[in-house]
Each structure stands twice: as C-alpha cells, then as structure tokens.
C-alpha cells in the first residue's frame, strides 16, 4: 500500500507542474476585452509554458480583495479530489476563475454567473502537489483575486 502510494506520488511529481503567478494572469488573457459570452478561452485553458503565458500578458495585475474567499482544506490527503468553495461578496460577480499555480495546466474552471446567480461556487479540483489555489473574480470589467495554499499529501495531477 505504502509503496503504491509512493509510486503514485513520484509519478504525480514527475508530471512537472508549474508556471508561476505571472503566467497565470497572462494565461487568462486579461488584456483582452469584449470576449463573447461563454466563449471558451482555449489559449487560457491550454497555456503550459512561460513563453506562451508571457505572450498573453499585457494586462492589469488583479488586486487582492478580501471580499473573495476560498474555502478549502489546509491539507488535502488526496490531490485528485480537493473540495473547494469560492465565495465573492463583490457586487454583481460576473465571472469566477479557479486556478492552481503548480498544475500542468493552471486554469481549472471558468464560471459565468448570469444576473441573479450568487457569487459562490462549490466544486472539487485536482492538485498535483502542494500549491496555491487562486480565485479570480471579474466584475465591472475588472479582475480581483484571492489565493490560498493547500498542502497535498498524495498528488492528483494525472
């Protein structure tokens, strides 16, 4: 059992997650405006290298905002299922993005919230290793962020 876990863990670590915060913000294409409703930002979902990420940069760095909260366990035993809730008390939260700074592809999910839908989403995500979860919230054309570190015992990247 212990051996199996170690093998899994090595494998997860070997997948070589990582890019860093700069890349994350670039990957989402914050510089672009007028993206159509619900259009998939393929580039953001596929961004893996720093070059690619830097290429997309040209953007506002989102401000930290205490109105955004990330609820997640301090330590996740299994990185394949990390329960998280993102809550935004910002008025009229239009979009929520969930990112993990050390996953092979950092953008996990993008939620469009029509008028009347609360700025709160609960889901489960994969984390390859101990990393920061970053929540971005878009409202009134601006991005705000919050982040939270989660320690991962068994990586769930693959």
């Amino acid at each position, binding site marked *: 059992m212990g051996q199996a876990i170690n093998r899994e863990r090595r*494998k997860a670590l070997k*997948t070589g997650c990582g890019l860093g915060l700069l890349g994350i913000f670039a990957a989402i294409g914050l510089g672009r405006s007028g993206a159509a*409703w*619900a259009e*998939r*930002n393929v580039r953001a*979902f596929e961004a893996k290298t720093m070059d690619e990420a830097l290429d997309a940069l040209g953007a506002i760095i989102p401000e930290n905002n205490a109105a955004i909260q990330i609820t997640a366990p301090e330590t996740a035993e299994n990185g*394949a*299922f*990390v329960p998280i*809730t993102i809550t935004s008390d910002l008025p009229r939260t239009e979009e929520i993005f*969930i990112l*993990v700074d050390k*996953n*092979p*592809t*950092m*953008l*996990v*999910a*993008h*939620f*469009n*919230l*029509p008028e*009347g*839908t*609360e700025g*709160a*989403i*609960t*889901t*489960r*995500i*994969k984390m390859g290793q101990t990393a920061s979860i970053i929540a971005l919230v878009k409202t009134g054309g601006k991005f705000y962020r919050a982040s939270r570190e989660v320690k991962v015992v068994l990586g*769930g*990247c*693959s």
Partner: protein
Amino acid sequence: MGSPIKIRASVKEGYTEVRILMQHEMETGRRKGESGNLVPAKYITEVKVRHNDRIVLDCQFGTGVSKDPYLVFRFKGGKQGEKISVYWADNKGDNRLEEAVIG
C-alpha cells in the same frame, strides 16, 4: 451518450440551491494506462445549467476538475415543480442532457 447526471434542486430563503453530480472520467491525457501508453484526454469542457429556459450557470472546464464533477450554486427565485436542466459536452463530442424539478 454520457452517463446520467444527478441533480438536486431545492428552494431556500428566496434562492434555489442546485447540486449536480456528473459521471465522467475527466481524463487529463497525462495518465498511463495498463499498457503503459498514455490514456487520451477525455474531459468535460462545457456545462450549462438552465432554470426553465434561462441559463443560470455557464461553465468551462479544463482537465483540473476532479473525476465525476460536482457543483453547488444558488440563484435567486425558482419555485417547487419548476424545471432545472443540466447539459454537458466533452472534448470528444460526447454529451448529456438531464432534467429535474425543483423539490
């Protein structure tokens, strides 16, 4: 055609809370199968939730969403007996549409 979606929707203090459990392997394309070859990526890319015919949640997923994706959210309004529908599509052209009523 994908596996059934479990949907629970209930009215709470002027809101409808929706809980969704989709059955999907969410393969990243980075996992090796028994043969030692990489298992091709197969994951949900898009989820749309409607209340009657109005979209109340519109999601784009990457490979980082866990196997059997689970979602909880709330929207204003909604009454018992009204319709909630959930649609997903994956990167391989598979999809599923499921309906439930608010309880």
